[in-house]
């Protein structure tokens, strides 16, 4: 085992291979508060990549309802239970609070003979992709009506491969069949080298590697790399009707650039957080946590920054740069490397420095007449 630095943990940790960061790291921010679990992302991925024999059960992208939704069944609970209770500490460093993970990662907690602490789902575990859908955390009494704050809570968690900086799938493969591309940090599984041992399936804590029983190899999300190579966002991003997703590139904290959308949300505003950072993989899909879930639940899922992230998001309307950037989500198929606000407008700029999209801070209000004179028809407005 080598010693590597994991900035999400605020400390060094053990990993199978030495630290070797890519030239650029693919990353994404998902705004959970905007997700309606329509599964359009799931279908966009499914029809693009996993419509073959043996791929029937695979969902490289899925959306599950928390707290009772899982795909595969109890993927997070099983590992949290194995990992047992762990803790974070906070200390001052150069005038700012730094969170440090005091517990063990899944690499450090690996049992003898294993590279990673993990578990392999059975086929039955994949049989209930909609389990817990729209289930509240608790019961709602008969006769209850909508209140704020809500009487009870749930939220939707859209998930893809996290293209981790320290992938457990990669470290677990005894054949070195999984690799991280130096040019963009996308984690791929070499279909010509895999022999279907399923070590990666057991090791990935997010359970985003799947065994194909009809080809005998394992398969995973490829971040739509043919699109990324052409400056375009992946299918699950551009088909999202809730416009909750933004793809881009993340820097390490010390190299964060304020005009980089992902850096700004993750490192500068700290409004977007990694999923289960305590596992130790430095995952690269970041979530703006939901406003209405209990802080303790969010801390477990997104780490110690969850409460501050919720506060920042609640105040986004008063922060024109932040709210402007949030308006760029889902505004273009192209990958935005930089953003710039000028007055009431925010621009998205691509890798070549060209402005590819411009959106207003506030959409103009348009009041449409009930009667359309042009078409001589009365329109019905939906509520």
């Amino acid at each position, binding site marked *: 085992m080598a010693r590597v630095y994991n900035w999400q943990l605020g400390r060094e940790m053990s990993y199978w291979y030495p630290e070797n960061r890519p030239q650029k790291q693919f990353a994404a921010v998902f705004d959970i508060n905007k997700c309606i679990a329509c599964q359009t992302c799931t279908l966009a991925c499914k029809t693009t990549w996993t419509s073959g024999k043996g791929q029937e059960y695979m969902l490289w992208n899925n959306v599950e309802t928390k707290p009772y939704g899982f795909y595969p069944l109890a993927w997070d609970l099983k590992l949290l239970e194995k990992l047992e209770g762990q803790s974070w500490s906070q200390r001052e460093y150069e005038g700012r609070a730094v969170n440090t993970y005091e517990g063990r990662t899944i690499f450090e907690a690996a049992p003898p003979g294993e590279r990673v602490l993990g578990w392999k789902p059975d086929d039955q575990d994949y049989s209930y992709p909609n389990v817990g859908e729209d289930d509240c955390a608790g019961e709602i009494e008969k006769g209850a009506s909508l209140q704020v704050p809500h009487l009870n809570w749930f939220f939707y968690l859209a998930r893809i491969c996290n293209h981790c900086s320290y992938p457990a799938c990669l470290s677990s493969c*005894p054949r070195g069949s999984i690799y991280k591309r130096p040019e963009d940090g996308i984690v791929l599984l070499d279909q010509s080298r895999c022999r279907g041992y*399923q070590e990666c399936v057991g090791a990935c804590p997010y359970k985003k590697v799947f065994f194909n029983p009809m*080809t005998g190899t394992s398969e995973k999300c490829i971040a739509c790399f043919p699109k990324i190579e052409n400056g375009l966002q992946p299918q699950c991003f551009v088909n999202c009707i809730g416009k909750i997703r933004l793809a881009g590139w993340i820097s390490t904290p010390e190299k964060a650039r304020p005009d980089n959308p992902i850096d700004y949300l993750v490192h500068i505003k700290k409004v977007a957080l990694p999923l289960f950072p305590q596992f130790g993989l430095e995952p690269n899909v970041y979530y703006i946590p939901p406003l209405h879930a209990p802080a303790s639940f969010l801390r477990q899922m997104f780490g110690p920054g969850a409460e501050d992230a919720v506060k920042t998001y609640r105040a986004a309307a008063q922060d024109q740069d932040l709210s402007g950037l949030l308006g760029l989500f889902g505004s273009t198929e192209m990958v935005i490397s930089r953003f710039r606000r000028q007055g009431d407008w925010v621009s998205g700029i691509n890798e070549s420095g060209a402005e590819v999209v411009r959106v207003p801070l506030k959409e103009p209000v348009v009041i449409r007449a009930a009667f359309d004179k042009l078409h001589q028809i009365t329109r019905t407005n939906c509520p």
Partner: protein
Amino acid sequence: MCTHTRSIAPIILLSLVLVSSCGRGPVMTTEVVALSAASVPLDPNDRAWDNASEHLEPLVLQDLVDPRLTEASTPSLRVRAITNGEEIAFRIEWPDTTKDDLPGPSHFVDACAIQTPAAVEATVPAPQMGEVGKTVEIAYWRADWQASVDGREDSIRSTYPNASVDHYPFDAPSLETGSEAQKEMATRYAPAAAVGNRRVGKRESPVEDLLAEGPGTLSRAAQTHSRGKGLRTEAGWSVVIVRPIPIGLAPGARSQVAFAVWEGEHREVGARKMRTGWVPLVMVK
């Protein structure tokens, strides 16, 4: 008292060997002795095997490299060998109460392998899949490949009999059945097949020839020359693997052979296996 027990133990063992060799059972040997014959049998039930002596080899855990097998399963295997001077046939038998021949998520298949040094030399490669510069040759048999050879349908319904699939893109009415366009579409959704690495499905042989120069280096040989046939027995598996004689292994010569067994029910796969070290292999003149 203790010393006395030790001194009689070899006598008891020797007596057991003699008794077994006097009865109807096979002649037991301390090494794998390849009987010389005009032809090599492929069928595990071929009567030719009755003439060959049998070697019982205990299996040990693969617990040297991660991921390891930490809990023992198959205790031992029985081996017989017959050679015709060009090929050598091994019949391997091991106990296994469950037949595991359908791969799936967390479902692993029964398998076995024979390993020999690529060349018969004074210095022997490491028994753990060879070492850099000292290649080992491996012939690998799998129960699901055997099932395919025996006629099992290559369909998701072989694993899930009640599976219902709405639609595959390559089944679209616009694509003529069996056309190049349809094949191309089907391959698009089977990436391993597209790069010639389909690990399951329709096969003509249950055996694959492999090369290795240490753990994690396993690669397919340019061509598979080995043949094989596996049968389910009351006790477990009986598998014959026929392969070309290693270079330099003439009649009367000695070399080494190693074995491995994977118990699918025990989730054994890849490095998680029961194995032997090098076992002496003697070619009868």
